[in-house]
């Protein structure tokens, strides 16, 4: 039963993240057509058809994920309790889901005549989708300030849709609208984007005052740390928005079309970072707000003691000194017929408290990996100058990481430990690590070929920034302590800046590749992402699981 619930639980939360993305896309499209491109002369048939196609796809996807969400959550409830299905259908999430499904279906089947005239009545189902989502948000569950929080959440969702969701449609307009209409649409969008940003910021600030309440909670709780990351990414979006704004101002005088092409590239990156912020928000809704967690917070003194600058650890403890992994303990317990532990995390280094040797082992792993990333960033930085063309070999540094992972990730298995080569493949996490090693090797060779000009396609070049962006999302959203276990939170405090710099590296490289040749920003972006890599390396080299000696 536990496995079944775990699998269903996994699916349920996956669907919640999808719901936020789909509603942003559908509502953003409605806003774009009814407000940004409201005047009929701004939208030709091609643009109208493309926009409606995306709105309807977003709505249909929303129907599918909402049906799956309601069915799965209901099954989890009936399977884990003896509550009959007839009672489960009375739950708030079922009503909210039904409302979202009906509203999204209305958007999907919206009559062709009303689609053509872009009748504002279409806001009825769009607001239905929004209301259903707010009904299942943090704000609806709160005891205090419920009306205020529901209002702020509604504004926050709406502003996200009009800005981030609307960007997808702006990219369409950059391709399909008539030249004159394109400039007007871009100007309208720019104006409304500024309003959306202001609403997003103020609504977010209002919610933070209730959910986080105090400044020390920003670094002292998991919710606060995630909020900090979200605010950092929001600042990056603002920077991109400011760049867009200056391009929009010069669109009239631009005869080369470079401005429109640059806007499209900026739009892609804003959509990417916006999506990351939405996923981070989906992850945040699963966290208890800071205001609910008053015990076990991390203080600034504890952060300084843990992460104050000190020399990296470049000497490893002996393999025999570290604790056995959970898998080994389980294997031995099973063989000896002893009872198995009641609860454990597969793949964790050991059940119980980490010994000094375990900590030293982990610090050595992080610090050495940091050195390799630092080296990679340094070489990438040198390769940007004309004096060091040989530095283009920087992707081969990934091979060092692969070798390091191969030897250090599973110390109890071949070639370091007692478990043989074939035997080690029977353990799931060892298999995962081995697969990761193969992937890293393939990626190193692939990126080396891209960097040295052996592979010339744009799609191939975009793989590296996409991997950085996904890696950043992984780090940003993983390992959240439901309660403030201090050690987990301290680890998260080091991983969150890594995630932010990883995302910055990926999206700056993406923008460098995608901006048209004549755009001056490319020159600066070429230096930004290697510097981000260097910073990631330095953070990893300062990663510690023990406090500084006083």
């Amino acid at each position, binding site marked *: 039963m536990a496995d079944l619930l775990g699998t269903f*639980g*996994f*699916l*349920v*939360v*996956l*669907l*919640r*993240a*999808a719901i936020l*993305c789909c509603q942003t896309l559908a509502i953003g499209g409605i806003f774009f057509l009814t407000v940004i491109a409201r005047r009929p002369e701004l939208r030709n048939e091609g643009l109208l058809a493309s926009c409606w196609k995306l709105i309807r796809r977003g709505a249909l996807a929303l129907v599918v994920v909402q049906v799956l*969400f309601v069915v799965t*959550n209901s099954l*989890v*409830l009936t399977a*884990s*309790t003896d*509550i009959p299905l007839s*009672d*489960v259908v*009375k*739950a*708030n*999430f079922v009503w*909210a889901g039904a409302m979202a499904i009906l509203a999204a279906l209305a958007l999907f089947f919206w009559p062709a005549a009303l689609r053509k005239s872009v009748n504002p009545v279409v806001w009825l189902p769009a607001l239905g989708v929004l209301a259903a989502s707010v*009904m*299942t*948000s*943090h704000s*609806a*569950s*709160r*005891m205090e300030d419920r009306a205020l929080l529901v209002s702020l959440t509604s504004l926050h969702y709406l502003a996200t849709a009009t800005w981030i969701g609307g960007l997808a449609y702006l990219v369409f307009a950059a391709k399909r609208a008539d030249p004159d209409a394109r400039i007007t649409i871009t100007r309208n969008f720019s104006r409304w984007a500024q309003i959306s940003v202001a609403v997003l910021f103020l609504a977010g600030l209002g919610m933070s005052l209730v959910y986080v309440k105090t400044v020390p909670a920003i670094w002292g709780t998991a919710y606060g740390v995630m909020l900090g990351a979200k605010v950092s990414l929001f600042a990056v979006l603002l920077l991109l928005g400011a760049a867009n704004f200056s391009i929009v101002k010069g669109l009239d005088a631009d005869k080369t079309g470079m401005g429109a092409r640059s806007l499209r590239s900026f739009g892609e990156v804003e959509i990417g970072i916006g*999506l*990351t912020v939405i*996923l*981070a928000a*989906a*992850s945040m*809704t*699963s*966290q*208890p*707000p800071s205001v*609910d*967690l008053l015990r076990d917070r991390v203080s600034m003194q504890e952060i300084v003691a843990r992460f104050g600058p000190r020399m990296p650890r470049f000497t490893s403890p002996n393999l025999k000194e570290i604790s056995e992994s959970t898998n080994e303990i389980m294997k031995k317990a099973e063989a000896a017929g002893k009872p198995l532990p009641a609860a454990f995390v597969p793949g964790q280094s050991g059940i119980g408290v980490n010994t000094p040797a375990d900590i030293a082992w982990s610090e050595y792993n992080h610090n050495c990996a940091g050195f390799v990333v630092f080296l990679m960033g340094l070489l990438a930085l040198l390769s940007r100058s004309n004096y060091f063309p040989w530095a283009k070999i920087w992707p081969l540094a990934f091979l060092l990481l692969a070798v390091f992972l191969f030897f250090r990730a599973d110390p109890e298995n071949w070639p370091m430990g007692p478990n043989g080569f074939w035997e080690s493949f029977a353990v799931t996490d060892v298999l995962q690590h081995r697969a990761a090693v193969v992937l890293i090797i393939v990626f190193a060779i692939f990126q080396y070929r891209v960097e040295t000009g052996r592979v010339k396609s744009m*799609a191939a070049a*975009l*793989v590296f920034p*996409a991997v950085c*962006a*996904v890696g950043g*999302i*992984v780090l940003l*959203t*993983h*390992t*959240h302590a*439901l*309660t403030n276990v201090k050690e987990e939170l301290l680890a998260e405090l080091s991983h969150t800046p890594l995630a932010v710099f990883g995302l910055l590296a990926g999206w700056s490289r993406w923008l460098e590749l995608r901006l048209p040749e004549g755009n001056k920003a490319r020159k600066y972006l070429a230096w930004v992402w290697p510097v981000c890599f260097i910073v990631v390396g330095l953070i990893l080299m300062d990663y510690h699981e023990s406090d500084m000696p006083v």
Partner: protein
Amino acid sequence: MRTRIAGLAVIGVAMLVVAGFVEGHAILKETTPAANSKVAGPDVPISLKYNVRIDAKLSKLMLLNPDNSTTELKIEEQKSPDTLNSKAAGLKPGAYRIRWQVLAPDGHITRGEIPFTVTGS
């Protein structure tokens, strides 16, 4: 087309990753009996206060007895939307656990256990 497929793949992977680490968010703020406390039997009033509203009709309380048998605890009518109340009667001295599962209005299901010991009356 290839770019589109790659884009969808990136979004899919990102969402899978986010989902993998997301869990429910209802947490206990106060409990009676308190975790790891000693209480006098045989009748023990139970009160669990959460950080969010709870759907009592779709939540469940179980008592794990010292002999590993289980008893379902009847949830009383909610006095406050964030609190579940019940009563365990006729408890003999020994180690017990309250196993709870709650549903928040946002659809999150959360579970947990509260260990406590019953001493003689």
